[in-house]
């Protein structure tokens, strides 16, 4: 295992810490697994999986339990030691920064795909489920379904995202469309239909009315009215599935989209034009997730069964950041002020 970890962390050390400048204002958490090739339920884990946290030196250190099937995390804005993770067994919650955990969901909620905390009502936690939507009103301790307005079938939900400007305003990306609730999931309505799954929904850090979504077969979608109406983004077809989308918090107009088949696409003019940014990524540039560092604009591309790559020129050149043979499910930047 030491050999594996060394291989994982060494490139980071060689690369050095974050770009020169002030200490980062955010911690970076990775949720995922390493050494995933050939892994099945019951395999012995030879590497640490689950939560990784960026170190002061720019590397990543494993935190807490070894858990190979964590899909994403959401932090309590009041205390970053409290966060919730969508994991294969359900939603796990930690109150001590990932050292100990409790499964909040029971057997009737399994394989959540994403979890989100309402920043304006942080006791409220939402979970995207393969068969609907779960809600906790008590910080992840207990869970119930709130699916009024969702279809009886066709509610495979991949992503759930909370509007940071209004408590209880939540979007769910499912197999039949984008659904919106404005009353903390008491009622849902579909605001955009699709025939395959909506895979990611993000709110612009620059304009809270500006939202982007990506999907399996409907391409990339955009809303300029706070998610009430959505329209396809020209130039991004739905011929290949898109897995995640990210705004650059440091510069308005810069957007990145990750695709397992297409690789990484970026736009620097608010989606008017797009470019493939795969040069410097592995030949199999199967990009699972992308994110942009709010401190310095570094663009990340997590390669499926590959490494985590970083680019300080928004995709024109790339450097491996280690984490080989990994599937990083989520990159979350947490303000250090919440520590």
């Amino acid at each position: 295992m030491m050999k594996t970890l060394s291989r994982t962390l060494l490139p980071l050390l060689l690369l050095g810490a974050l770009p020169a400048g002030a200490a980062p204002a955010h911690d970076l958490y990775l949720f995922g697994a390493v050494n995933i090739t050939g892994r099945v339920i019951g395999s012995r884990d030879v590497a640490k999986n689950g939560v990784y946290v960026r170190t002061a030196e720019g590397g990543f250190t494993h935190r807490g339990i070894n858990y190979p099937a964590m899909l994403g995390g959401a932090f309590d804005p009041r205390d970053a030691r409290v966060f919730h993770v969508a994991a294969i067994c359900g939603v796990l919650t930690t109150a001590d920064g990932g050292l100990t955990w409790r499964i909040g969901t029971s057997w009737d909620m399994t394989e959540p795909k994403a979890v989100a905390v309402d920043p304006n009502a942080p006791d409220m936690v939402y979970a995207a489920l393969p068969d609907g939507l779960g809600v906790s009103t008590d910080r992840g301790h207990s869970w119930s379904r709130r699916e009024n307005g969702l279809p009886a079938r066709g509610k495979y939900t991949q992503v759930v995202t909370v509007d940071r400007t209004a408590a209880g305003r939540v979007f769910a990306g499912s197999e039949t469309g984008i659904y919106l609730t404005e009353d903390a999931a008491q009622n849902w309505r579909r605001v955009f239909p699709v025939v395959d799954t909506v895979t990611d929904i993000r709110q612009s850090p620059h304009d809270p009315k500006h939202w982007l979504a990506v999907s399996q077969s409907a391409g990339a979608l955009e809303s300029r009215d706070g998610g009430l109406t959505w329209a396809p983004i020209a130039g991004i077809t739905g011929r290949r599935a898109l897995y995640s989308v990210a705004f650059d918090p440091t510069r308005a107009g810069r957007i990145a989209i990750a695709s397992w088949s297409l690789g990484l696409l970026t736009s620097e003019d608010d989606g008017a034009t797009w470019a493939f940014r795969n040069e410097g990524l592995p030949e199999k540039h199967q990009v699972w997730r992308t994110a942009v560092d709010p401190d310095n604009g570094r663009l990340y591309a997590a390669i499926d069964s590959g490494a985590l790559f970083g680019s300080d020129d928004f995709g024109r050149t790339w450097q491996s950041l280690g984490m080989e043979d990994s599937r990083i499910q989520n990159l979350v930047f947490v303000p250090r002020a919440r520590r």
Partner: protein
Amino acid sequence: MKASQFFRSAPALLLAVTLSAQPSFEGPAPVVTSVPAEDQRLAAYHARVDEVLQWRAGRVDLNDIPGTMDMASISILLTLGRDIEACNERVLQMMAEPGTGPFWMFPAVCVAFTGRELLSPEARASIREAWRTTRQLRGDTENHWVMYYASLYLMSELYPNEPAETWYTGRSSEENLAEAREWLIHWMDTTTTVGQGEFNTTHYIGEYAIPMLFMATWAKDPAMKLRGRMMLDWMFAELATVSLNGVLRGPNARSDEGSVIERWNALASYFSWLLFGNTPPPSGYGGWGLYFAPVAKNYVLPEVIHRIAVERDGDYVQRDRARTRRFWRYSDVLSPPVYKTNYLRHDYAVGSTQGIVNDVIQAHVWDVTWREEDPRGKHPTMFSLHPHSSGRMMQAQFATYPEPMPVGVTFEGKPSYDSPDKVLGGSPYEKVFQDLDTVIALYDIAPGERFEHINGFFSKDLRDVTEDASGWIFARGGNAFLAYRPLAPYHWIPYLHYNGGWATVRDDLGGRVLTSPHLKNGTIVQAAGADEFESFEAFKAAMRALPLEFTLEPVPSVRFTTLRGKNVAFTYGEAPVVDGVPVDYSKWKLFEGPYLNAEVGGRKLTVTHGRLQRVLDFNTLTVKDSVRE
């Protein structure tokens, strides 16, 4: 005989051991035609159990404890009361690096309970500590959950009144117990009302039987203990009914590359051998079978089930209902029904499922299999399939993205999934109808699918294979005559075998694959007993004379008069019609046949053989035996 892989498709949590001195595996195949008297029956069962225990215990080398002792051997040594110090030492070693998931959990439960009065306090404490420190994955399939919750239930009962922080779940003993109990009862309710999702599995039967045996043996709650025993009866009654000569026949919700060809070479055969004594056990007693053995003497197979397995009154049809794997997406129903037909005769069996794809990766939908007196190394089966591979179907049944899984799963124990010549897996483009020993399989493959052809398996063990000018392909398998009618042009390719879930190269074991590269396609198979005809030529003549009309456009459609005189009309996507009457699957019972009967929604199974009857009633948690005067 080719030595088969010891650890089949399951994660390698067990240790490799020398495959030698397995008397029943290496000895002659048993010939069993009747059930002995009760005392002899029990004695023979115990002798088989002891054979397993002694074999595995004999493989332990106390000079190489890490290399020869796994949790199965620890449990067996504890059961035998031997080498306790070595068990203590090995438990401490193994608990320093616990596994994560149900395949680790139930072996750990086996050690915990067999050693609860024998292991040292330190060893027992190390097991308990592992259930605090190591996150256990629940998994994503029915068998995972059965193993997971049975294990969590038993450990929570073993350590009651312990606080949340002492368990990996972050929940107290009572919370764990309540959740596990609730799900186990939910699963039993589902299984006994609308059927099992992983039905008639060649291998996964162990992943159900072992946890249920543990429940039946170690649960403190008498209701849960009884439920465990009743589920064992339920599953073994089904195994008895759809096996011939101890070999599981017909469709399987899930199988693997080995068992679908060498039908005997499955964990199911371990249970047939252990319980019925009518077939050899697989090599290494099937691997996981080693966890059944230490506790096996706590279960007594009901005589009525034993008789079903070995004393057949004649030919019979068993029609049952089950359900598919969960459809997360692309279906109006979470687990749509599957309709099973099994027709068993003395020399062969024909079985199939009708309905939607029950498992996209590992389903085996239909076949004709024939009796081999010694089934070891034989490939006594004939069938066809569409080799389907798609992200969409993966997404339907798994919570995954479209691209990675079709290829990724080939590195995860399912090596053939994305192979064009594969002989395993379900397809949404296959529709099957069966009447007695006639099967019609129709295919209407969408253009642009990854594989635009169908495969038919022709065993190395077929004799006198003849491509007749009539369009039929005739063959003999054991004492069965077989006729296979491709509905579109075809060519032959060699059958290349993946020997196990982790195989990276393929073996040429003999046999061929009939591959037909046409989107609209079909197969008709008719079987008959060799003793029904004066000669093979007479069978051929009879087949040539049967009225057959078919068309492939706009969709495949067949009108055929079967060898049994039934006028069958079957069009892709429509209900089949037999003698002018459409088949209405919605009226099928949960079990219907001479041996097993149950109503949909009934939670009650009636098991019958001759004058003997056992009723398993989950409504009242009662088991009622009766004998007809």
